């Protein structure tokens, strides 16, 4: 199925390359200029190439970088990565019915994932249906993760290790939006397949929600028959910013097999807050997300696996130069800074009543150059402090990264 999909995409891309010669056939769709687009609109707020009169738009993005890191003074040297290339295809099947898919090739094709493949049925601005492979709307990053939108090469730690971005599942749900004057309010809610018990049984030796992503069968059947519920609401004021609150929860363990109960139902619940704004005076872009995770870990299991996690990040991006450079109109130079913190095990040891650590803190100053809003060249310096569960001296990792990301 994936091969067919790839072949179709390749054909379309070939067509688009030929079509680009004739500018009358290819139209780059404009991004939302109302400035009332939300994080949850991110899947459609991308530059698509429209192919003549075909009812299909295509696009994609690619990321590549080099990095040189050292941990406690020991380096493995320089390495080059192409973490992902993503292709997306959108199709308006009929009025009010459209389909969008996103397929991602990770690390040179080592992994191929369908991250999004949903049919949207637009009934009313406040009530629409979506089904297929959906991106669970928890936090902001999971929905708005395209590389070219970010000034940082690495994805936020908490957004990828507590919220296991990109986290998508087969499911169905509703969404809607209401806008008036400077305000827009929106909501989403989905039932989908969900987590499994690898989140507390994995080689990371900690509660690790991304472990569930290894289970490709979650696209075929739910691990335990109980749907994962994800709900998000967001409010945006044109002059203030966007604030989102979201929840995702469900049962993660196999509590019965062949009708025989083998354990109690154990839940995993995540709550996330997200906020982004642009300070009008300085055009400073601020983007933040914070998540709490609650996992019902059996008392008789190891405290190595935390029952509470929390973490988040804040990005500050300051444009410092906007001018024509090498013929690129309105290209921008930005200074960027990210602070992030993740605690994988919130709580205290039963034996000592002292804090369980297992946390990570990182800072990432960077500089980026955007010849257009769709392409970013970025250089980051990253410093990470990782503390083990006992709170011993943190291991320190630092490095320099240089790379680019662009829509195409």
């Amino acid at each position, binding site marked *: 199925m994936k091969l067919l999909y790839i072949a179709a995409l390749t054909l379309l891309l070939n067509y688009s390359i030929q079509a680009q010669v004739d500018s009358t056939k290819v139209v780059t769709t404009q991004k939302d200029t109302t400035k009332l687009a939300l994080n949850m609109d991110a899947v459609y707020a991308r530059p698509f190439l429209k192919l003549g009169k075909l009812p299909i738009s295509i696009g994609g993005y690619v990321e590549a970088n080099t990095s*040189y*890191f*050292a*941990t*406690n*003074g*020991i*380096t493995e040297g320089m390495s080059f990565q192409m973490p992902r290339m993503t292709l997306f295809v959108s199709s308006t099947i009929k009025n009010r019915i459209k389909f969008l898919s996103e397929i991602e090739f990770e690390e040179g094709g080592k992994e191929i994932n369908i991250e999004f493949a949903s049919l949207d049925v637009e009934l009313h601005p406040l009530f629409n249906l979506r089904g297929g492979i959906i991106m669970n709307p928890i936090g902001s990053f999971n929905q708005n993760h395209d590389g070219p939108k970010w000034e940082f090469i690495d994805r936020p730690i908490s957004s990828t290790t507590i919220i296991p971005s990109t986290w998508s599942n087969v499911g169905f749900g509703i969404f809607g939006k209401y806008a008036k004057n400077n305000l827009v309010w929106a909501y989403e809610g989905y039932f989908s397949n969900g987590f499994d*018990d*690898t989140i*507390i*049984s*994995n*080689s*990371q*030796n900690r509660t690790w929600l991304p472990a569930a992503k290894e289970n490709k069968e979650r696209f075929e059947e739910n691990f335990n028959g109980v749907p994962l519920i994800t709900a998000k609401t967001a409010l945006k004021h044109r002059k203030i910013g966007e604030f989102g609150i979201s929840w995702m929860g469900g049962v993660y*363990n196999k509590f019965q097999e062949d009708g025989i109960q*083998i*354990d109690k139902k*154990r839940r995993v619940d995540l709550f996330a807050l997200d906020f982004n704004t642009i300070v009008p005076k300085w055009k400073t872009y601020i983007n933040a997300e914070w998540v709490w995770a609650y996992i019902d870990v*059996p008392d*008789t*299991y*190891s*405290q*190595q696996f935390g029952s509470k996690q929390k973490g988040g990040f804040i990005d500050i991006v300051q444009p*410092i*130069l906007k*001018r024509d450079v090498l013929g690129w109109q309105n290209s921008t*130079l930005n*200074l960027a800074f990210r602070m992030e913190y993740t605690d994988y095990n919130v709580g205290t*040891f*039963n*034996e*000592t009543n*002292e804090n369980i*650590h297992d946390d990570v803190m990182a800072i990432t100053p960077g*500089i980026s150059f955007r010849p257009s809003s769709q392409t970013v060249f970025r250089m980051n*310096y990253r*410093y990470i402090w990782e503390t*083990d*569960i*006992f*709170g*011993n*001296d943190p291991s*320190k*990792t*630092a*490095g*320099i990264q240089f790379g680019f990301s662009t829509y195409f």
Partner: protein
Amino acid sequence: MKNNICLILIIIGLSLFMTTSCEDILTQEPEMEDILDGPIDGLSSSESLEFLEGDVAFNEQVFTAETGLGPLFVATSCVSCHAGDGKGHPFTTLTRFGQSDVSGNQFMHLGAPQLQNRALPGYLPEQIPSGASSAKFMPPANTGLGFLAALTDAQILAIADPFDSNNDGISGVPNYITPPSFFSPKWFHQENNGKYIGRFGKKAAAIDLLHQTVNAYNQDMGITSSFSPRDTYSGLDIDPEVSNRTVNNVVFYLRTLKAPLRRNQNDAEVQAGEALFSNLKCAECHKPQWTTPNSDIAGLANKTFYPYTDLLLHDMESGLDDGYTEGQAQTSEWRTPPLWGIGLAKKSQGGQYFLLHDGRARSIEQAILMHGGEALNSKNSYQQLTTGEKQKLVKFIESL
């Protein structure tokens, strides 16, 4: 104008960044004397590769239900109990139960000797059976074990004094252990009625590092091997969950971890403390110096090293008598723990001390004051010291 200023500032910033030394911006390597891990000197290329394979198995391999963990267990990996190859933490303290005298463990049919106090979901962990004595054991540091393993039984027996023939109040006896079926005696082992001298563990109940490692896989993680195929939960022999190669690599890793390096050796107060250590006869049990004989690993052969242990059992009397024992040891007898690396214990124990066999001592002074029995005279002598002298003694111990 504003744009130019921005550009100039960026160029200056980048220039400053680029001229900063790599060490400053890419983190610094800790001094070797401040860490416990790392190989001994003199390993060949092939030995270094084997060390690295063992390092990965010890420090990175995490067992899960799918890879054989449990279903009853204490820890999910080796490194869970030995962070940075150092001492453990109360969270990883082991509980042993079931043997209260030299007649052997009477609770083997109920899961003894080790309590598996954690369980996979759906299983219940073990409880200490009614009537069974027990003791908690703090995981020890791993470093330098290869040097201790390389010593001959004759060397250990040469300093044993089971009948206190020199009347110094200190005896020192070896713990003779019935070997497991997989034990293969080396040229330096001496049999005594089918038993061999134990060297490792709080009660010296493990004869060699293979014995120690196989038991740790089986008892701590519920991982069977061809050496010890018995599943601790079902009591049945099952397929190996860890390969012989991995077990042997871990044993090699433990054999070739470097000995802890002394710090502040030339400090006058440390040297004064060292003299006090000797004067107080602490060194009678915490024997400072040994020299290895020939070894199949060149880096371990004919080396003088400083573990501060005699590998013998000593009676600490009631204060440290938990009512549990192993092998031929009395319940109040403990193997002299090596003191090397004790100054780095905090680095693996979350910045604080958990000393003695179960971590009950929260400082070196507390540990000294909890000594009794054969160490009573030394403890009393310590209490007669001035505050300054006590500080020098502690400073010396922390330099080890």
